[in-house]
């Protein structure tokens, strides 16, 4: 139990995927202008991350390792991710058209979110068991969601700020992310 808590705290706060590990930055910058879309993106990404962590664990343990094909990890995982994303899309569309309308547009973007491949690769190199892998996947997603949602609320606020012209848009968003990352350094050493 404690181990799980440690994994979660570590992947959400201390080694936050976005602010500390620099993974998933493109959607972080791209889909954070509106709170609503950030929430949608977060939900979709967390779901895909968790599922990918599980699926890539299986592929890695059952196919790549026994066959000595570790060098094919990258390509195998990216295929797995694409499949998971596709599957998620179908699944959601089938089960909840409402949810699909909210999340649908975000799903294709997730394929090229490096957080997803990052989780798969990191898990594979860390030699974890299935439960741990899934938890890392979920934690990564939760951490991504946390900062994405807070960041988008902040960017909405910045929309009316009197920002010097050259800094408007991407530049100030970067600087804001920098200050957020500064704040997140406070979590170092927690576990």
């Amino acid at each position, binding site marked *: 139990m404690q181990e799980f808590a440690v994994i979660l705290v570590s992947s959400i706060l201390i080694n936050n995927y976005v602010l500390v590990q620099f993974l998933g930055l493109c959607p972080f910058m791209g889909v954070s202008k509106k*709170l*609503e879309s950030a929430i949608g993106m977060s939900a979709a990404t967390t779901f895909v991350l968790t599922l990918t962590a599980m699926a890539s664990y299986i592929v890695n343990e059952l196919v790549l390792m026994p066959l000595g094909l570790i060098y094919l990890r990258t390509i195998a995982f990216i295929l797995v991710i694409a499949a998971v994303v596709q599957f998620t899309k179908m699944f959601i569309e089938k089960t909840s058209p409402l949810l699909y309308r909210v999340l649908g547009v975000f799903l294709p973007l997730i394929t090229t979110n490096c957080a997803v491949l990052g989780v798969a690769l990191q898990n594979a190199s860390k030699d974890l068991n299935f439960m741990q892998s899934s938890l890392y996947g979920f934690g990564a997603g939760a951490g991504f969601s946390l900062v994405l*949602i*807070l960041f988008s*609320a*902040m960017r*909405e*606020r*910045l929309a009316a*700020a*009197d*920002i*010097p012209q050259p*800094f408007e848009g991407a530049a*100030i968003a970067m*600087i*804001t992310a920098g*200050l*957020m990352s*500064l*704040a*997140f*350094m*406070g*979590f*170092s*050493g*927690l*576990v």
Partner: protein
Amino acid sequence: MAFKQISSPHGHNPQSTSWVMQLVLLSTLPGFIALSYQFGWGTFINLIIAVMTSLVAEAAMLALRNRPIAFYLKDYSAAVTAVLLALALPPLASWWVVVVGSLFAIVVAKQLYGGIGHNPFNPAMVGYVVLLISFPIEMTTWVTPISLLPEGVQHPGLWESLSIVFAGNTPIDGITGATPLDVFKHSSGLVVDQIYHDEALFNQASFAGVGWEWVNVGFLIGGIILLKTRIFTWHAPLAMLGTLALMSILFWDSGSSASPGSPVMHLFSGASMMGAFFILTDPVSSAVSNRGRFIYGSLIGLLVYVIRAWGNYPDAVAFAVLLGNFAAPFIDNYTLPRTYGHTARRKATDKGEDE
């Protein structure tokens, strides 16, 4: 004669922003006096350097941004930022430490966002954290409080202090040491009673840790003045102190070696009181509604405790405040008050006219 077209209301109460800021400046006096008494001239020198740097930086940025300089300098906000940063820095820190901190605070954290009122993060705390991370040695070298100085040793006088700060002369041995929170953090394996017994920082204290208890009392007095003059409401500070106290009670476990310290120590050590009454209350970067500020304060209190108890940093107010700032706009979206005539509170993301 044609008269001007002016929207109501006509007339205004006499409070102005610069008046508010001046009041905040005045209210830091008790804390400043306590700091100076306990740690010597260093704080005063920090203050002068920080204020000068901040004002120059502010003026320069305003000039670059083509804004009326005098109009904005008159609001005293740069001075408040500078003073609060200076009070948080270790006395006798090198001049360039103070300068870098002030520059970061004013230029990056404040003016790049559009100046007063627009910054989402607390400028003083941004300056502080940048320094803490970049120059850990300079930032963890604290002066020993007056009552713990060895026999015959005194804090350096003004000139000597100046030479330490500007010429980089190292302070005489024995006048620097760890802070109570620092000591506590690193006495792992000892039960609390033993720490209290062994460490001069604790066994000579009136309560909490030597020197720091009175600094905190100073800021508490200043804070109460501000509360009474209705510069801010009680929500954020009390929520923070309350949560901090609550957490330290919950994990006090009668002072075993794993205990992160007593409520009294947490409330009256480090930057607790200054944080609660001067930093959290920075209106610009905090949540907006009273409910929001309550949540914001509680969140910061919680984070302060978590980082102090289990994280890397002995004091965590600066980090916790930045994290709180980060969450504030989100909190704002979900803590609108219930408006007259509505049955429920609304969320900022609600669409249309009602419900």
